[in-house]
């Protein structure tokens, strides 16, 4: 996407929104209106000019998209004010909007191509590269040639970019070993091999791994409504051992939903549920479940490597799991119907985005946010909704402390995304982006 399209908003290496096709922006005093001033003189590769009308057409199109639409849920109206200004009217304050737009939800395409519905086969954007159809074999290799003129040309040092969609990790490693690839989304297990070959290795936390409690109030599984049971489960898991065994140690043991090293993360909270099986059993007994309880959980291929640890550890508390096997797409569809399930979920570098994605919004992994049933959470979230910028870090810290205290989720560890690149090319990983956009792949 980042080869062919320009976004309205981009992210810097610290995941802070920075100007792209939107030169600048400003929120109204009540944060219910976002005014964006657009770059002028930009054209799409089909010759159409990029202006406010094009931006409005794109934003409306993105709002109707299944995934992109989630970002624009709070957006009520999108209007042009002159040739180079766009105003987004918001139903309620949304502090994560600009971050999500920068994360890849504000790519601008030629309006004619949007109307024609041909973007999937023939992308038309204003980005630094154009698709070279002669050098492209669908499904196997996509070649992009650099444009002679682009408003941010200096940021893209490569004359040609070739993209190989490879799903099998052994195949992608082989491709890198054979010299076909310069950059690779890698399996941390291959880090020793990367060192042997003198490749650059870049890693950053990207996902939380553990058990997702989808029923904090005990509606479907009564024991889960008891904080002591949730805490017992948190104490029982040895995140450090699982991280070493499953992810070759590529990650950081943490109990938190906020990514390690990013705003919102509190190092002191990570020892809150240090592995303590005796304490876990004691909490189960205090909650009235000394013999545990039965639970049904879904299972799918990507989670199979976590299954033994889950089964064994829950078994130590007497929690007897019946696994229901299903395909990966069905897992996401069916998981919300279970009270708890294994989950590997993307982290967000922006704390407001974490609040929206992981706590307040309904999603497949958070089918019943139920924050209103927890007065402290409800109060902090209410304050966050109106707080001025300087008060927000303190409120996020309080929220994080409250979530960990309530054992909101059972996070075992935060796993890294790892990228290999050959000497001379450097990748800067961004938490929230599975594949860093081209601006984060530089010579160096």
């Amino acid at each position, binding site marked *: 996407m980042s080869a062919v399209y320009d976004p309205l908003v981009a992210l810097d290496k610290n995941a802070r929104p920075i100007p792209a096709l939107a030169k600048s922006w400003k929120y109204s005093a009540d944060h219910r209106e976002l005014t964006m001033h657009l770059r002028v003189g930009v054209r799409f590769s089909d010759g159409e000019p990029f202006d406010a009308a094009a931006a409005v057409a794109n934003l409306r199109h993105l709002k109707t998209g299944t995934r992109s639409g989630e970002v624009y849920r709070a957006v009520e109206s999108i209007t042009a004010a002159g040739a180079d200004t766009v105003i987004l009217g918001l139903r309620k304050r949304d502090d994560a909007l600009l971050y999500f737009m920068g994360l890849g939800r504000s790519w601008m395409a030629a309006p004619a191509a949007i109307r024609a519905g041909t973007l999937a086969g023939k992308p038309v954007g204003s980005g630094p590269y154009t698709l070279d159809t002669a050098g492209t*074999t669908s*499904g196997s290799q996509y070649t992009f040639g650099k444009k002679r003129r682009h408003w941010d040309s200096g940021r893209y040092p490569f004359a040609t970019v070739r993209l190989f*969609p*490879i*799903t*099998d990790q052994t195949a992608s490693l082989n491709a890198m*070993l054979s010299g*076909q690839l310069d950059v690779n989304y890698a399996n941390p297990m291959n880090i020793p091999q990367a060192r042997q070959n003198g490749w650059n290795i870049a890693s950053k936390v990207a996902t939380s791994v553990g058990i997702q409690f989808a029923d904090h109030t005990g509606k479907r599984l009564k024991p889960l409504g008891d904080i002591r049971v949730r805490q017992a489960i948190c104490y029982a898991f040895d995140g450090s051992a699982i991280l070493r065994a499953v992810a070759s140690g590529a990650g950081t043991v943490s109990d938190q939903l906020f990514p390690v090293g990013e705003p919102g993360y509190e190092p002191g909270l990570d020892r809150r549920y240090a592995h303590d099986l005796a304490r876990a059993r004691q909490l189960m007994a205090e909650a009235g479940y000394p013999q545990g309880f039965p639970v049904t959980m879904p299972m799918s291929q990507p989670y199979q490597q976590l299954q033994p640890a889950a089964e064994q550890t829950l078994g130590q508390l007497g929690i007897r799991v019946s696994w229901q096997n299903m395909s990966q797409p069905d897992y996401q*569809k069916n998981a*919300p119907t279970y009270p708890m399930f294994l989950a590997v979920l993307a982290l967000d570098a922006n704390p407001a985005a974490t609040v929206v994605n992981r706590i307040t919004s309904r999603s497949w992994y958070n089918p019943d946010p139920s924050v209103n049933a927890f007065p402290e959470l409800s109060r902090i979230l209410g304050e966050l909704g109106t707080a001025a910028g300087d008060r927000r870090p303190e409120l996020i810290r309080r929220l994080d402390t409250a979530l960990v205290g309530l054992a909101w989720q059972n996070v075992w560890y935060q796993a890294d995304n790892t990228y290999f690149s050959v000497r001379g090319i450097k990748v800067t990983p961004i938490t929230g982006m599975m594949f860093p956009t081209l601006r984060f792949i530089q010579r160096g």
Partner: protein
Amino acid sequence: MLTFIVRRLVSGIVLLLVVTCGSFFLAHLAIGDPTPGLLGNSAKPAQRQALREKLGLDRPLLVQFWDWFSHAVRGDFGTSWRNFQPISEQIGLRVPVTLSVVLTATLLAALLGLVIGVASGRRPGGILDRCLKFASVVLFALPGFWVSLVLIMWFAIQLRWFPAVGYVSPDESVLGWLRSITLPSIALALSAIVMVAEQLRNGFFEVANQDFVRTLRARGLSTRRITVHVLRNASPAALTVLALTFVGLLGGAIVVELVFNLPGIGTLTQSASQIGDIPILLGLTVVTIVFVVIVNFLLDLVLGWVNPKVRDQ
């Protein structure tokens, strides 16, 4: 000969119809209502009903079949249940990839199998014959993915003669296309080569000891001409094995496509099976059967040419 061709064509079409109909009804009866899988357990009955109507699943099965069949005969297999993209387009993009690899592997199996089989059959118990026996045991035992990985390690990573992954369309570069299909084709062909060679070797050895060959020798025919006669009599079994090999390679391509990251019908079959996308699976079934029918038809023609008695059977 014309009657023979017409008969084979009709039987091929009947096979195509029977297997296609069987696949359609078996797939639908086995999966039943696909909407829980497509929408999830949490979907409301109204949402499921809406999807059933959108997919046309609210109609009687026979009506659904006729609708699908009447479009399929015109090459329109409908759209995928998952991404709603036209299936003919998706399959059309992938068939050339799989055919490139499978046909090249079959060609390699035919040519090398012929040379090795005849050479071994002419000197049974010789070094080449013993090597063939050893190779047939070893290559049958080795799994395809392992052979593929060894080829990649050696020819792509160590020597860098061929790419480790990916497919280049011949429209883009003929040389690139050849380089991209060489290793996958060899990986697929290795066991097929020894299979064809073994068949030819046995047939050749058996025919070479028959009375008519002794008579040919007694009449002073050259070794080359005798070899041609023997080969003609020994080839039917090998040709049948070759045709079966093609069908087998078509199915076995999944592993090779995964290891070499080739966007062929094998990987499409795998992904469609995982998500229960019946229209794609049916489209792939029809395409595969068409290939099988064509290959069998060609085999019958060749066998009829090699042995005229076959035409009357």
